[in-house]
């Protein structure tokens, strides 16, 4: 294993993040505050409780997940698309590194950035609502696994994309709807029975449910199922990336 190479890629990618630290920090704080003002204070004041939890607090895990998933995807997809776009990928392809090392460097950096933003949102939310975390270790585990698995998905999107429009396409058309419909702002039990069944096909439901369980000890689906869902999703993404590097699809002619 070329650990020096992994560390080099990771540091190079993190340097990009630190160059724009202010924007990276300000944007999630601002959007989270807006969500709390709109959903927490304005609309939330008319909603009593969901599953016995104050609505303002109920949406915190969903809000964190929403940002973490979109940030993981956009960071990782941009991270690998940019070298493709400007041509610096030649250096990666001609270096003595294998696919796993490249993935660990890029995905690790993208996941770290998303984790940082998730933490910032959690800290911001404490300014608006009282939060107690029932299972802190499980919360960190779910957060890290979500960051990693969605960064893997972002990496695939970055390799697949042929232009900047395509880079935005999957997050906009698929991921955002799945996250919004995955119970970020509501409990699945609030849906009509038929939709409760349909929504179980949405993989994001399992992630949000598991994450919410780590906060409040209550979940829409069993925690074990949530962990299994993340595991399957991560394995699937890794499998696709392994295939990409084996065949050189869209990176090596």
């Amino acid at each position, binding site marked *: 294993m070329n650990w020096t190479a992994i560390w*080099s890629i990771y540091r*190079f990618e993190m340097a990009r993040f630190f160059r724009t630290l202010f924007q990276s920090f300000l944007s999630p704080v601002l959007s989270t505050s807006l969500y709390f003002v709109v959903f927490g204070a304005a609309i939330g004041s008319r909603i009593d409780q969901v599953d016995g939890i104050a609505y303002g607090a109920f949406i915190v895990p969903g809000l964190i997940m929403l940002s973490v998933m979109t940030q993981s995807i956009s960071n990782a997809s941009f991270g690998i698309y940019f070298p493709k776009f*400007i041509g610096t990928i*030649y*250096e*990666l*392809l*001609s*270096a*003595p590194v294998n696919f796993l090392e490249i993935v660990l460097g890029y995905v690790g950096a993208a996941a770290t950035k998303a984790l940082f933003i998730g933490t910032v949102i959690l800290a911001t939310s404490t300014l608006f609502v009282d939060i107690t975390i029932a299972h802190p270790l499980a919360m960190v585990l779910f957060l890290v696994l979500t960051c990693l698995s969605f960064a893997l998905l972002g990496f695939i999107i970055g390799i697949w994309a042929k232009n900047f429009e395509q880079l935005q396409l999957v997050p906009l058309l698929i991921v955002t709807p799945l996250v919004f419909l995955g119970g970020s702002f509501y409990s699945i039990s609030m849906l009509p029975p038929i939709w409760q069944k349909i929504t179980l096909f949405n993989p994001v439901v399992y992630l949000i449910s598991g994450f919410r369980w780590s906060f409040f000890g209550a979940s829409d689906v069993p925690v074990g199922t949530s962990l299994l869902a993340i595991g399957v999703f991560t394995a699937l993404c890794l499998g696709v990336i392994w295939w990409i590097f084996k065949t050189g699809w869209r990176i090596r002619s």
Partner: protein
Amino acid sequence: MAAILSISDLRKSYEGGFEALKGVSLDIDEGEILALLGPNGAGKTTLISTVCGIITPTSGSVRVGGHCIIEDFRAARALVGLVPQEINLEPFEKVINSVRFSRGLFGKPKNEPLIEDILKKLSLWDKRNAQVKELSGGMKRRVLIAKALAHEPRVLFLDEPTAGVDVELRKDMWEVVQELKDGGVTIILTTHYIEEAEAIADRVGVIADGQILLVKDKDDLMAQLGQKQLCVHLSAPIKEVPSSLATHDLELNQEGDALIYSYDTKAERTGITALLNDVAAAGLVLADVSTRQSSLEDIFVGLVSGEKS
């Protein structure tokens, strides 16, 4: 001398049937400078990219320092540095960080004195903390060279290193290449500038249409294939070549005061003695005699046009 790079029957076909490399075989000795000449689309960049691992070969084998580039890619790639044709650089990163990244990517531990030395040799030390986007085109090209040298490669590929570079900087680059060679680095460079090959190469390879047409020692090549011209300057101009000299296939220059005779240095008899005797017999008085050897460019154009016809 042992071959540090050994290419055997290398082929690359793309979907759609285009064959970019048609069975290229080439051995490159350690420590030499090989200039690869060829017209646009000849396969120069494809050949380099395949050796470096950017393009997957269709068939054939490449060994660097005895290591197969597919089965033992780590050991093979660790020996190779690449300076690409296009200026591909992360624009927002500092020069020194970009070079450090390249070293780390190849798994080499931190070595700041080495990085400093490379940047100083390439006159980039003063710009080490500048963002790459702030640099001029020539400087960016030098950053590419610095990045390629950061992991101390034994074989360096320079894909048209002086394309679009002014004459002064080109000469600087040649000095850098010579220094690298003195340090034992094997260098393969592609170029459009024949004078570049003539100035710095030990051997010259000519590639066209995905095939190596010739690889020869530069001096041997010029001596063996070079046509020479003998120019017989006359003390008084004449209107036409005298009929007694017709067998020598002479040309008269525009001013009518010089006879030009082309001959092959490889030939058993150059015909110079007979020509000079006949010139004297024809009553012409000589003012001067000079010779000119054809350049590598003449040889190159002759080879490539011969391949096309």
